[in-house]
């Protein structure tokens, strides 16, 4: 079940998605054996309080979140978490965020070489912060700039987390590839809104939030497939995966690996379930490895 996912050799294809697994230390009943990798909660240089409540609201087969990248800042991350990551037998990538290309670069430079940090996932697609975030993600030039700024400051593997809020994801994907990305994570959440009929205002304090969960899966499979067709670097599929079959849809559609996010909230063992289910599917299909999985990937 080992896979090559953007500069990293992972023992398994299932990765914990950023923001849905904390810093890897919170999830109860964690079954480490099944983890291909963990992407940490998104981090900024400085500490951030995050958005006021309500921060989440459930929707049909999905949820909106506007956490606002609450976090302790990079120094606390290095002090409190990296040492533990260094002892684990799977890689941890840091999901990095900034308000300018330079800030992304600085973050990468500060974390480069810190024991426990195996690579970076550049979040150019967070819908829940006023500055930065998604703005970089839906402009090819800006996305390339941020990618290049990080590339200049580190030799570690870089994944770029793409936003679905674009008219052609292939253009952004190619821009990040040429700017030096080792892999692409597709996709982040879709911007959504829910109205409270008691107050006649949005339910979320931030007004809008990012939609995740099974509701977006068919959209995520399509976008990950579009990205995979457009580039040569590995694409990591993410969006609405709950079961092994869901994950296999992304893999068949051309992804090298997958990330599981929201599903972990309802089932802390989701990642192990998906991992074991993929193994069982390969066995039942008489495939000796993921490399033998038939792919549907007409090239652009």
């Amino acid at each position: 079940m080992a896979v090559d996912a953007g500069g990293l050799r992972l023992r398994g294809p299932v990765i914990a998605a950023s923001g849905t697994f904390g810093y890897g230390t919170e999830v109860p009943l964690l079954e480490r054996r099944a983890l291909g990798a963990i992407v940490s909660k998104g981090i900024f240089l400085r500490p951030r309080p995050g958005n006021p409540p309500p921060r989440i609201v459930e929707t049909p087969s999905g949820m909106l979140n506007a956490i606002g990248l609450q976090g302790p800042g990079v120094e606390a991350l290095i002090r409190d978490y990296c040492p533990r990551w260094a002892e684990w037998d799977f890689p941890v990538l840091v999901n990095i965020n900034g308000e300018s290309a330079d800030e992304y670069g600085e973050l990468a430079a500060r974390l480069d070489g810190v024991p426990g940090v195996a690579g970076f996932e550049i979040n150019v697609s967070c819908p829940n912060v006023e500055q930065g975030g998604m703005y970089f993600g839906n402009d090819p030039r800006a996305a390339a700039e941020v990618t290049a700024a990080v590339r200049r400051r580190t030799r570690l593997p870089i994944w770029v987390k793409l936003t679905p809020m674009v008219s052609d994801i292939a253009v952004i994907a190619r821009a990040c590839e040429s700017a030096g990305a080792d892999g692409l994570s597709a996709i982040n959440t879709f911007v959504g809104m829910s109205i409270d009929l008691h107050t006649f205002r949005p339910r979320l304090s931030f007004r809008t939030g990012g939609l995740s969960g099974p509701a977006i899966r068919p959209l995520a499979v399509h976008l990950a497939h579009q990205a995979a067709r457009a580039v040569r670097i590995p694409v990591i599929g993410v969006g609405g995966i709950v079961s092994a079959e869901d994950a296999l849809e992304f893999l068949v559609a051309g992804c090298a690996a997958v990330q599981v996010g929201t599903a972990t909230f309802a089932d802390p063992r989701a990642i192990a379930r998906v991992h074991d289910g993929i193994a069982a599917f390969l066995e039942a299909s008489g495939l000796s490895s993921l490399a033998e999985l038939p792919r549907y990937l007409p090239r652009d």
Partner: protein
Amino acid sequence: MVHELLTRVASFPRRDGHYRVMGFDAPAIAESVRAGQFVNLLLRPGPLLRRPFSVYRTMPDGTVEIIYRPVGEGTALLAGMQIGEPVSVLGPLGRPFEFDPAWGSVALVSGGLGVAPMWLAARDARAAGLRVTWVHGARTSAELSLEWVGDEIVFATDDGSRGFHGSAVAAVPDGVGAVLACGPNRMLAAVAARWPDAQVAVETYMGCGTGVCLGCAVPLRAGGYDRACKEGPVYRAADVDWEALPSHLHYGVGA
């Protein structure tokens, strides 16, 4: 230690006033849960996310009870479930109430559905050798929960239809050694004003109940937010920034 038990409904929803009480077969949780902690229930078919419920009572046979009112998707499904139907129970979760024998006595103050954590609180308080005064309020007598334990019971109704005419907070006798409260945030704010050191159990939306999603933010007086599911749901009353904490649940109580 947190358990995830794929278990079954152990007892039919029992009515307590206009609340329902329902039991699940969950020995590992029943024996370790402490007052103020909650379980997170997964219903299939049902909503995407789990629903957190304070543990109401535990039985010697390993049954864990919750008390609720059908207000939406999850509770409507619960109300329709039969004995033996499957449910996943995750818990015990969250920080419990603390008890100090030095208090001598304690008042358990609940507004409407806020009664949920109080049965265990009474149990643990008496185990700590405390005299328990149970103060329970609702909008009207029909909405009172009538199950109680302790040394003394004080009912309060906003409309005066039973017991003290006014809020549960106002009905608390003077001279109690400590106050534990649960109810709408407006009520807890009043508790904080009268007893800054009171322990209160708050309620927020929760995505995971286990500390990973940061969806259950509780605004703190000291600034910033922490997690109702980890650092909470029990807080020192004066530590919470009540103006900034929305209340979602329909507790069936005014102030």
